[in-house]
């Protein structure tokens, strides 16, 4: 099954902006080549995680082996690597691309090139891919294929004259895509007789099979029963199973050069499988490893706490299980006076954070409180030492701080001309520095340097709102720079609430302190006693609000028949207090606390 000659194999990825039709095209390709029967086809086969389907995004890389009889009568193996489209998962994109020789660049024929299109296409170019432009949704009345072709040429510099015109939704010209794959992409190179080298593209934990490794064989053969060695890690394992995805997992005897597939080898955790490592034969090892990838580094951190303190162990277990599948997020135990025991968790970005949170609540049935996201600051002390800070509560006393650096990003924003002014204002308000501003037709491309701190709060939402959803956004990390940063504490009846403290630029501190106090006033329901809310930098109060006492709540009727019920209500109310969060001496309902933490600047 895997003795396919190299010139009959094509390995390809599909790159696209979100919603431009990548997953739908993948589905059509699978359907057209008979990978699954019509009955087996469910919408977006490759996005198997419930969350992926719901949000229409791809989180983990996936692969599928297609068998296609081309018009020339020859049968080809087409290995499709599905890749995530979102900026947070750029790292997953880069490793997926490294396993392929070419890409389909899918662009929505009415919307044109977007920020993520650019980011991903640059990565494909960096991976030396042959790129075939595909214009999707050409059946829509708003489609402007000629304008978009021109845009691809102007913005990306790719020849789009031979772009394949399709509608993935209706299945129009899917064959054109398959033919383009066969004739326009190069076959992989490789030597079946050379020592084994296979790229470890991804790994995940399957509850029946244990760790499953996604591989791309470069040279040699990967066989069942073979003793393999991870070249960087140095560990040795025996291969239990070799196979391919059709997209169902189909075991085979081996995988030859140029092929993609999976192996299992009785490996306990994905942490043992460094993505980007090279797999070789333990007895006949290769001398040179394949080029690897840079490891992913969390850039956004937040605290995750169980709503019910009794769930702490369950949260620890669940985080452990998630980490089996996603080595890119980090966690360590921490405690908070307001929230109790929890974990400080690091993520690749905000979407990653949101996804992990949602998976914890859905797959593990956990009620969580997340503190406001924080970036990683570098604090340099007057005594010459420095440290990384990813929890505002850990900020040292200002007197021992020499200076603080904060991370910056380079953001690319594409937006229709009409909304450019609003977008530029937003970027300037967030301390942005314009690096470039160009036009393509009536769309502008703004490149800005921005402090990540200003982006993690609500930048996406604001951007969407000021551009009515038309702006697209992508970013990359762009180093650290000195900054005038202060920690703002929130005090309730004079007691600081550690989980609500945050770090902001001095210029924005007062405004944000005022706005958070005002919002807390709205969020916290009136209680038995009046409540004072203050924001302070050190001991200096910068904002203050008072929540007056509630004025009436007594039950009108209470007679002999009500007493048992009222007593039980009272007891339930006391139980409910356990689910309240303590703000000093003030108890705040969970919902208000969550809303307070979700609050933007």
């Amino acid at each position, binding site marked *: 099954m895997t003795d396919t000659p190299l010139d009959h194999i094509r390995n390809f990825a599909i790159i696209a902006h979100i919603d431009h039709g990548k997953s739908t095209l993948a589905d059509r390709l699978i359907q057209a080549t008979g990978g699954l029967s019509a009955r087996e086809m469910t919408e977006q086969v490759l996005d198997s995680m419930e969350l992926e389907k719901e949000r229409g995004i791809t989180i983990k890389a996936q692969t599928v082996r297609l068998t296609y009889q081309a018009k020339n009568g020859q049968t080809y193996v087409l290995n499709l690597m599905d890749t995530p489209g979102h900026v947070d998962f750029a790292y997953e994109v880069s490793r997926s691309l490294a396993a392929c020789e070419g890409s389909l660049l899918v662009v929505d024929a009415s919307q044109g090139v977007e920020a993520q299109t650019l980011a991903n296409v640059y990565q494909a170019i960096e991976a030396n891919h042959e790129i075939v432009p595909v214009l999707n949704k050409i059946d829509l009345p708003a489609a402007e294929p000629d304008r978009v072709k021109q845009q691809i040429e102007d913005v990306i510099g790719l020849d789009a004259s031979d772009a394949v015109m399709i509608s993935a939704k209706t299945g129009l010209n899917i064959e054109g895509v398959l033919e383009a794959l066969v004739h326009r992409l190069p076959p992989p190179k490789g030597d079946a007789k050379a020592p084994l080298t296979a790229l470890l593209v991804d790994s995940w934990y399957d509850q029946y099979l244990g760790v499953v490794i996604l591989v791309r064989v470069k040279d040699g053969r990967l066989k069942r029963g073979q003793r393999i060695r991870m070249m960087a890690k140095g560990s040795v394992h025996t291969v239990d199973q070799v196979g391919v995805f059709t997209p169902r997992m189909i075991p085979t005897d081996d995988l030859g050069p140029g092929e993609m597939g999976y192996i299992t080898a009785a490996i306990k955790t994905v942490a043992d499988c460094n993505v980007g490592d090279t797999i070789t034969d333990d007895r006949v090892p290769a001398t040179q490893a394949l080029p690897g990838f840079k490891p992913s580094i969390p850039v956004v951190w937040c605290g995750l706490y169980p709503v019910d303190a009794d769930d702490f162990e369950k949260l620890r277990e669940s985080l452990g299980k998630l980490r089996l599948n996603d080595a890119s997020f980090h966690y360590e135990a921490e405690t908070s006076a307001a929230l109790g025991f929890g974990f400080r968790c690091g993520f690749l970005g905000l979407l990653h954070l949101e996804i992990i949170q949602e998976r914890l609540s859905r797959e593990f049935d956990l009620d969580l409180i997340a503190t406001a996201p924080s970036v990683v600051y570098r604090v340099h002390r007057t005594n010459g030492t420095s440290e990384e800070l990813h929890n505002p509560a850990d900020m040292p006393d200002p007197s021992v701080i020499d200076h603080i650096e904060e991370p910056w990003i380079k953001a690319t924003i594409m937006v229709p001309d009409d909304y450019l002014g609003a977008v530029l204002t937003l970027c300037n308000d967030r301390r942005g520095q314009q690096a470039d501003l160009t036009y393509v037709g009536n769309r502008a491309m703004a490149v800005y340097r921005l402090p990540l701190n200003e982006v993690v709060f609500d930048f996406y939402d604001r951007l969407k709102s000021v551009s009515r959803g038309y702006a697209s956004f992508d970013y990359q990390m762009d180093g650290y720079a000195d900054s005038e940063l202060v920690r703002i504490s929130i005090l309730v009846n004079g007691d600081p609430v550690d989980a609500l403290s945050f770090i902001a630029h001095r210029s924005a501190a007062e405004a944000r302190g005022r706005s958070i106090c005002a919002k807390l006033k709205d969020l916290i329901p009136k209680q038995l006693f009046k409540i004072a809310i203050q924001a302070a930098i050190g001991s200096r109060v910068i904002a203050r609000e008072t929540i007056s006492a509630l004025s009436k709540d*007594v039950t009108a*009727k209470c007679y002999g028949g009500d007493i048992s019920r009222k007593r039980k209500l009272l007891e339930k109310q006391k139980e409910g207090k356990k689910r309240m969060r303590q703000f000093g001496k003030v108890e705040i309902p969970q919902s208000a606390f969550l809303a307070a933490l979700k609050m933007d600047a």
Partner: protein
Amino acid sequence: MEPLALYIHWPFCLAKCPYCDFNSHVRERIDQHRFAAALRAELAWEAARLGRRPMASIFFGGGTPSLMDAQTVADLIEDARRLFDPLPDLEITLEANPTSVEAARLAAFRQAGVNRISLGVQSLKAESLTMLGRQHSADQAIAALERARKIFPRVSFDLIYARPGQSEAAWRAELRQALALASDHLSLYQLTIEPGTAFFTSHARGDIVLPDDDTAAALYDATAEEAGKFGLLPYEVSNYARPGSESRHNLAYWRYGDYAGIGPGAHGRVSVDGALLATRRHRAPEPWAERVERDGHGSTDEVPVASDERAREMLLMGLRLTEGIDEARFFTRTGIHLDAALDADILARALEADYLARDNGCLRATPEGRKRLDSLLGALVA
């Protein structure tokens, strides 16, 4: 021995009011004889179990007890007087609706021994009576009240306020009209939305909007002010009386005294062999009657109320009263010292905020504290 307050429940109404979550049922025909016999049988069973003891009050509640045959009321009063030791000033209250039919029977109830009547007037405004689903008109209510005052030595009636859209001025005017008709007692309830009522659904849909807490507080204060002008003082959250005319039966609940409950769905707290039993009767009228016919009683479960539970119950009842809780009595009834039942920190803050006052061996909620009693209790009860 703690004197007994006896409650007798008549579970039937002509129609179900949309705000009411009491145990009431509408039937096309009611077998008066069967329910009369069952009530008498259950009373006899309860008396046998409790033994002779002093009795301070009898209260016929419902449902609509004014739909009972007067003879049944007479029989039950006579039974109770025979089975217990009635105090000389035994208070016997019957709840009545001011429809013309029921008003016509007031004299018969007086004949049966009832000495206090409580009329479910609810409003003196035609459109409000319709909204509240009442079966009587404002004129009928006024006529019934005037008649009742001629027949009974003691008369009380109920009004519901803080109705949707009701302004403070409109309520003051309606209340003044009512106070002019009142004798020595009034129950003035703010409208509340209870689960399992028609209003609950309307409220959830947004068709009924209740006033916010500030408005509700202003209406409450206005109520006390107007009632005070007529010499009716609040002795409980929603009850106003001339001093000495308080409902003795209801005071037994709020003072956490012993009370026995007879009839479908009735609750009781009775001292038996040194324990305080919480008693409960089967709620549905017909199955309750079947049980009484089969077993002599319709009791579903009877559980001793533990010391800490008694403390909570006594707190949540006692702080409704203007007089508050007598600390010595608290210890006698619960076996717990008052301070041990309270969160010391909240107690101190509540005293400082003038929500609570403590003097002469009593802990009481001030008018400001009483308005906020639900959250005060939630915080205060240890």
